[in-house]
């Protein structure tokens, strides 16, 4: 199975997802021109997903920032024109020494509020299948039968619900950015529900 283990996913959900909005904002500030925050974040998740199952990470936040910083350095090294200045600048980015910062708890609360807004904002057909799956633990097949729609439709609505939720999770709490991103998503994926 190429998928990551449930434990690893849960760990990512508890320790990394809540940091993502903050990390993204940080990356927009520090990443050199031409390196996309979104790419870096996917690469960072790939690194975290490939960690050995028993890896014990005491400071997820510090670890996440270290990884991302290293990724930036790699990007600069592999780019066609290596800028020594850019490398030196990245070297100066200070990564927090410890993961125990007040943001951790705050983001836990914000996270839940964000999740509420995300689910609340789902188009009703998407929300219905999503909630049937998550509240009632109904398999997708059963949902399809219940709603008298095809399994393929359930899958499409569910995917769309998940995409919207992910969009909500990745923005920081300034609403302006959120709206922009969601609008963009809608344009890109007009199919679905």
């Amino acid at each position, binding site marked *: 199975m190429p998928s990551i283990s449930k434990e690893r996913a849960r760990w990512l959900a508890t320790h990394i997802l809540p940091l993502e909005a903050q990390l993204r904002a940080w990356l927009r500030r520090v990443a050199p021109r031409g390196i996309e925050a979104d790419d870096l974040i*996917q690469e960072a998740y790939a690194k975290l997903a490939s960690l050995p199952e028993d890896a014990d990470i005491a400071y997820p936040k510090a670890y996440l920032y270290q990884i991302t910083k290293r990724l930036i350095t790699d990007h600069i090294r592999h780019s066609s024109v290596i800028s020594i200045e850019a490398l030196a600048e990245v070297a100066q980015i200070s990564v927090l020494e410890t993961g125990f910062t007040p943001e951790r708890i705050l983001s836990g609360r914000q996270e*839940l509020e964000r999740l509420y807004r995300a689910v*609340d904002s789902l188009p009703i057909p998407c929300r219905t299948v999503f909630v049937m799956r998550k509240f009632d633990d109904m398999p997708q097949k059963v949902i399809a039968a219940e709603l008298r729609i095809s399994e393929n439709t359930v899958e499409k609505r569910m995917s769309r619900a998940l*995409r919207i939720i992910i969009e909500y999770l990745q923005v920081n709490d300034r609403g302006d950015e959120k709206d922009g991103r969601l609008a963009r998503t809608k344009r890109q994926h007009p199919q679905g529900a």
Partner: protein
Amino acid sequence: MDGLPGRSGSIRKVRESAAAIDAAAASWVVRLDRGLTATEEANLHAWLGADGRRLGAFARAQAAWLHADRAQAFRAATNWRAPPATAKATRWAAAAAIIAGFAMSFMMWQSYSRTHLATAKGEIRKDSLADGSYVTLDTRSRISVQFEPETRIVRLESGEALFEVEKDSARPFVVQAGDVRIRAIGTAFVVRRGSDNEVEVTVTKGVVSVWRETKKLESSTRLIAGERAVVSPHKTDRPIELTETELAHALAWKSGIIDLNGRTLSDAAAEFNRYNRQTVVIADATLAGQVVVGRFQANDPLAFVSAAAAMLDAHVRIDGEQLILEGGPTP
């Protein structure tokens, strides 16, 4: 968008956008949730292998999928499950939002954070906790931190720690050491787990209450700044008041110093042995009972045994990792 790598074969390689990868990853996670056919599994393999970012997006989408389980918290407070009834929908949604907001602030959601901190032998470390409190761990100590919306719980699993607690009267700070509980609001205190399940609590600032889990909170002991109490499985000693010097001694370890204030030589040796690989051995029973005074670097046991030898008419024999203090002049 079936997630297969179709574009990579063209001559001008177009880099897939992060958003496109995210969308494909979300679809894969949903398909995984309903179960994959053998072909789909192979396709997923191929898809993941074609770009390093895809595994990341996939892991993240899986994490979000699991994270979304927390939405169950809103189950009772929302009408999300109800079939779309257009007329009532808006009114309901407004009410639901209020109720959900209310439920949220009172709920103990699963996203509590739990973390471990530990020091190796000879290590002394200060860390800040999520609430702004500080903890300083003495040598070979271990704590686990579990912060929830209404309580802050730190379990002292072994060793000794100084807690400097950030004031938050809505969220008491409770240290658990075996079955001993120490509750504080905004204060500073040292907890040390000794042998025989003894727990020593020394308060340097503010007030704490100390009790045993097996007893009721009413029977707790109040300790104020400058007091110390020792709780053993059988009894809780009355708090004793410490002099300023004694209090300073109790905190000396924080700066890597062992302050021997009228302790016996065998006690002192045991203290050094908590920090160092080299062990101090007092070979002579009469020497072991001698009372000594002095301040030493915790990581310099040789300085300590040499000073003790000079003071007590003894000598030091070094045998591998052992520093042995023997009576009489150097043979």
